[in-house]
């Protein structure tokens, strides 16, 4: 129950942040359907992650990753204009992949550390930082002008890119991003959809393997963690 209330609180925060961001964009441009899909995809994924109860079981992992997809399918009907089926399909895949990744990370941390309430906040914070990295890294990139490889890596790891590639939307050239970050004016390339999904799958498998290793009989990581803290 406490976890749900905390989740609700952070969901409201995410909603508020999303609202402010969309206002900034609306000031100068007409939102395209792709832009709406990206927002919906991020919103349902993060909201479900914050609100759904987590259990360290494979069934819970699958169910918690399928629900945001269902919500997205419903919400996408509200988008004006025609949206290609391939775009919906690819966006759906990214939602499932990102959800699986977040829950896998949550399961791993839940198995390893005792502070359950903090874990969800920690994972959400990490997801938020990754998502907004093109914004908060903008001054650094502006100042140090790193090479193409670093630029492409920054672009490749943010979920904004993943949703944008699925929606075939050049988000770095959108009004707000172009004006406020240097990425759109640099030589860059978005990763391909196959590469993105492969990356997600590799990370999810690795996290699940680690989770299984931590939970194996004879190794109580949680107890070890507590003992190490009480000793210190």
């Amino acid at each position: 129950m406490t976890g749900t209330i905390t989740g609700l609180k952070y969901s409201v925060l995410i909603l508020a942040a999303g609202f402010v961001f969309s206002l900034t964009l609306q000031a100068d441009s007409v939102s395209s359907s792709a832009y709406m899909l990206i927002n919906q995809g991020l919103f349902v994924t993060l909201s479900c992650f914050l609100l759904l109860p987590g259990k360290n079981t494979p069934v819970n992992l699958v169910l918690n990753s399928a629900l945001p997809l269902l919500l997205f399918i419903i919400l996408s009907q509200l988008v004006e204009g025609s949206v290609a089926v391939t775009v919906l399909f690819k966006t759906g895949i990214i939602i499932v992949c990102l959800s699986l990744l977040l829950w896998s990370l949550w399961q791993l941390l839940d198995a390893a550390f005792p502070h359950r309430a903090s874990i969800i906040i920690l994972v959400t914070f990490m997801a938020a930082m990754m998502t907004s990295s093109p914004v908060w890294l903008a001054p650094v990139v502006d100042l140090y002008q790193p090479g193409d490889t670093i630029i492409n890596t920054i672009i490749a790891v943010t979920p904004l890119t993943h949703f944008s590639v699925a929606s075939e939307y050049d988000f770095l050239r959108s009004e707000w991003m172009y004006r406020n970050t240097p990425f759109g004016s640099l030589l860059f390339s978005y990763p391909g959809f196959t590469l993105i999904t492969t990356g997600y799958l590799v990370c999810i498998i690795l996290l699940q393997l680690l989770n299984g290793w931590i939970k194996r009989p004879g190794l109580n990581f949680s107890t070890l963690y507590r003992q190490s803290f009480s000793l210190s």
Partner: protein
Amino acid sequence: MMKAIKTLFVALLFSLAFNVAADSDSNMDPTLKSKAKRATDNGLRYLREQQAEDGSWSGSVGITALALRAFLQSRRHYTEEDGPFIQRPIKFILSHVKEDGSISESINNRNYNTAVAITALQATGNPAYDTVIKNAQKFITGLQLDDAEGYTSDHKYYGGIGYGGDERPDLSNAYIAIEALKATSLDKNDPVWEKALVFISRSQNNSETNDLDWAKNDGGFAYMPGYSPHGDAVSYGGMTHAGLISLLFAGVDRNDPRVQAAYQWIKDNYTLDQNPGAKHNQGLFYYYNAFAKSMAAYGEAEITDSNNIRHNWRNDLSAKLLSLQGKDGSWVNSESPRWWEGNKNLVTAWSVIALNHVIH
């Protein structure tokens, strides 16, 4: 027989007189012209060395098309018959033709890539590419923001064209698109020109002809209505030359107040030591490229700046580009990598195209 010889003789005299007139028109320093010719040869040699096995440059449709154009429009007049170094880049470009008519390897830069690709394909003079060019024209004109996308004529973006991956238009994309549509002979009566002129006019700091409130009165162009990446909505060199080309290619007369205002800005800010109005010399070679094209299109051999000093722009541009060329024949913007100017293939192709305009 005598009549035929006489006719031939008269034709030769005419041809000679025309060439002399053309040279005196440009009034270019012969030594500089000779050096500029060598510089293009060296630039093309550099590009040849950098060409990938598949014929591309930097794996990009856009850069490949620009490099190809540099070869095709050079004084050597390379053609497909000259060998695989011309045939392969064409094949590479054609391998990226999409069902919607676009020609691009990625979701970003679809307008740029498609536009420069058809400009290069057109420069081959091969009618085999006509269908690809026609479809690409449709793709480019389809990107223009108008009522179909919900933009009424009073919207500041009306008539604009963007990168093709979002809906934000800008003058740079519009100019490249207009150049391509002009090069590929799009019907002069096509509504795309009129709509483009609305957007172009609204990107100019000229309140006499710009109906938006933001416009100041120096006559130069900003990146888009009310915005410049160099602060506020300041006019700068690259965009002002892009704006001037766009106006002329869209069919605006030289005496039109918009053209005259832009030309006045160019006279007031005449320099080749920097991209005037831009921060940290960002977009310097884009400026040189647009400068050469706009000055050639405007058709004056000399510019008299606001201090009453006369400049032969061909001499000045040649001298500047010669001074910036690397020993390997390449060019690169060593001050800023913004707008891809850290990429030697792109910057070399732009510089050769600029010099092609100078020496022709």
